[in-house]
């Protein structure tokens, strides 16, 4: 019964950790907008965590600059399982207008499996909310796979 409760809880309290890999700050503002009273992501249990050790969902924004690449990989490795990676904006997905630049070493799926990818420059808060909600459902499936 406790095992069932743990599996059920995985999707009900996803804590976010936000990684900025050279984003222009546009997507970051929209992520913060999700937590404001207007959209209120906390009603689904979403909470910004202060440390990657506490996080369930890693929200990545920005086109993975060469400088931030090693930090990104290290932060993802520091997060305990089960975890999900959500990319916000077109930059981590394709490189966007920075594609081909010498300072960029993307896209994100070169380094880690991306569970949910929210495209747009910048995506609307509604779209980010839906992406995060889908990630929470994936989290529950990952937890079930872990407990078997």
């Amino acid at each position, binding site marked *: 019964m406790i095992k069932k409760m743990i599996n059920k809880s995985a999707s009900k*309290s996803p804590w976010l950790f936000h990684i900025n890999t050279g984003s222009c700050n546009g997507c970051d503002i929209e992520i913060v907008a999700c937590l404001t009273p207007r959209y209120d992501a906390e009603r689904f249990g979403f909470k910004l965590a*202060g*440390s990657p050790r506490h996080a369930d969902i890693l929200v990545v924004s920005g086109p993975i600059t060469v400088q931030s690449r090693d930090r990104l990989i290290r932060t993802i490795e520091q997060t305990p399982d089960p975890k999900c990676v959500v990319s916000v904006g077109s930059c981590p997905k394709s490189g966007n207008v920075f594609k081909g630049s010498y300072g960029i070493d993307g896209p994100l799926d070169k380094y880690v499996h991306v569970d949910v990818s929210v495209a747009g420059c910048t995506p609307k808060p509604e779209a980010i909310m839906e992406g995060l909600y889908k990630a929470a459902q994936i989290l529950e499936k990952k937890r079930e796979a872990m407990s078997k």
Partner: protein
Amino acid sequence: MIILQYLFYILIFPGALFTIAAGLLLAGIDRKVIAHMQKRIGPPVAQPVYDFFKLLGKETIIPATANRAAYLIAPVVSFVSLCIVMLFIPILGFRAIGGAADMIVILYLITIPGAALIVGGAASGSPFAGIGISREMVTMMAYELPLVIILLTVAKKVGGDMLIFDLGIVSAYQAQAGSLITEWSMIPAAVAMLLVIPAEIGTQPFDVAEAENEICEGPLVEYSGSPLALFKLSINMKMIIMTGLFTALFFGGIRTGFVITDLIVFVLISTAVMLVCITTTHAITARLKIEHLFKFYWTVVAGLALVSAVLVWIGL
């Protein structure tokens, strides 16, 4: 038979199970009410329960630099000491374990979770935890002084000529002479106690030790999985224990006659105390700096407690 009775006290009521349930309930109400104050819908009241079970299911990572034994034992010590504190707090008429000086036992046991947090943070070997534990130590020193003065004041008020540190006698005195909150000389001490509670629990204006967007939750930075779940649970359990202590000290005169109704009234009063001193201050304030916190506690709060102590000592 007596062993079974004590096991019931420790494991179910008023020990572990009751403290956990009431603490999680209070934390859920706290988050819901804050959300409504900020015009949000807010998480469901059961959210702390989901958080706890989710953390149980996460992988536990032990950093290579950590002292493994101290790192894993610290959260257990914090949890167990809080289960024991609840045994000494009278739930209006009902009292599980009594003693001649249980106020002093409570004072010691309540510092153990803070000390465990310091030990666990130091064992994790993270520089963020280093900053966090130095702040936690200063916070503990800041609120201990007013708390001691408040307890001394209550002991003098109840004892008359001598000091009485027995919460059973405090409760019986209030049942006869009316709750201590109705005595005007005790009101400054009650206000001081209301200000001590948020620092003890570590909520918004006084959460300098666990500032999550500044030093990554301080001592908890390296914790993950079930040890983190125990620490978060300890924080929730402290809510019912500190508000319950306030209820026992200042509202102890209320009697309904039955243990069940006593319990319901006790939890309701504790919730009301929490809404005043934790939820409202959390919703309307920003975080203080550590030196401002220390100054505030040793001047304003200790001053309020001292005013009460002096009034009681001259016989008012």
